[in-house]
C-alpha cells in the first residue's frame, strides 16, 4: 500500500491529538481564557464562577469551545454596555447558567446517564428486547 506523500505527518498529528485533544480547540480555549482575563474585575469574577460551575457539575465536558466563545462574547458585550452583573444573571444565577449550558452537547458523564435512563425506561416499558446494547 503506497503511502500518500503527506500521510506520515497527518498520522503523526492524529496520534498526537489522541493524546492531547484537538490542538485547534486548545488554541481557541486559550483565546477564551485571555478574553476572560481582560474583563473588568467583577465581570471576570462572574465569568470564572460560571466556568467553575459548568465544569464541576459535569454539565459539559468542557471540550465544546463554541460554548466558551459564546460566553466570552456575552461577558465582553455586557462589560462594554455596563450591564449590571445582577441584570445579566437575574435573581437566580443557576437558572440562567442551566439555560445557557443546555444549548451545548452535554458532558460525557451526563450524556451517559441520560442514555442509560432512557434505555432503561424503554426496556421497562417493553419497547425494546432485553439484552440489546444500551450504554452509548
Amino acid at each position: 500500500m503506497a503511502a500518500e506523500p503527506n500521510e506520515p505527518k497527518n498520522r503523526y498529528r492524529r496520534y498526537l491529538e489522541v493524546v492531547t485533544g484537538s490542538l485547534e480547540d486548545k488554541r481557541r480555549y486559550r483565546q477564551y481564557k485571555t478574553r476572560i482575563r481582560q474583563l473588568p474585575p467583577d465581570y471576570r469574577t462572574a465569568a470564572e464562577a460560571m466556568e467553575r460551575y459548568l465544569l464541576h457539575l459535569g454539565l459539559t465536558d468542557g471540550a465544546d469551545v463554541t460554548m466558551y466563545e459564546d460566553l466570552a462574547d456575552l461577558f465582553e458585550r455586557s462589560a462594554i454596555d455596563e450591564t449590571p452583573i445582577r441584570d445579566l444573571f437575574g435573581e437566580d444565577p443557576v437558572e440562567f447558567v442551566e439555560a445557557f449550558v443546555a444549548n451545548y452537547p452535554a458532558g460525557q458523564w451526563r450524556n451517559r446517564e441520560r442514555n442509560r435512563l432512557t434505555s432503561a425506561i424503554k426496556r421497562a416499558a417493553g419497547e425494546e428486547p432485553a439484552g440489546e446494547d444500551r450504554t452509548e
Partner: protein
Amino acid sequence: MGKLVTEMLKGTLEGIVLAILSGRSAYGYEITAWLRDQGFSDIAEGTIYALLVRVEQRGLVDVEKVPSEKGPPRKVYSLNAQGREYLEEFWTTWSFLAGRLEQLREGGK
C-alpha cells in the same frame, strides 16, 4: 413581579422573543430592554442571550454581525421563514392553551 409569572414565562419566552423579532430585527440588549418596558422586569439578560443562542442553533433566526465602535460586533437577529413557521405553531398552541384555561375558569365559577 412574582415567582408565578417567572414560572409561567419559561415555556412562552421563546415565542415572545420570536414574536418581537417578527416585527423587526433586534439585538439581544434591545429585546431585554423591550421586555423590561413591558413589565417583565425579572428577566435576566443572560437568559435572553441563552435563548437567542438556541433559536440561532435551531435555524429559526438569521444573524447579522454588525460592527460596534467598542468591543466585539453586535449580533442582530431577524426571524426567517422557518422561524415564522415556528411562530405560527406557537400562536396556535397558545390559543389552544388560553382557550382551555378560560374554560376552566368559567367552569370554576
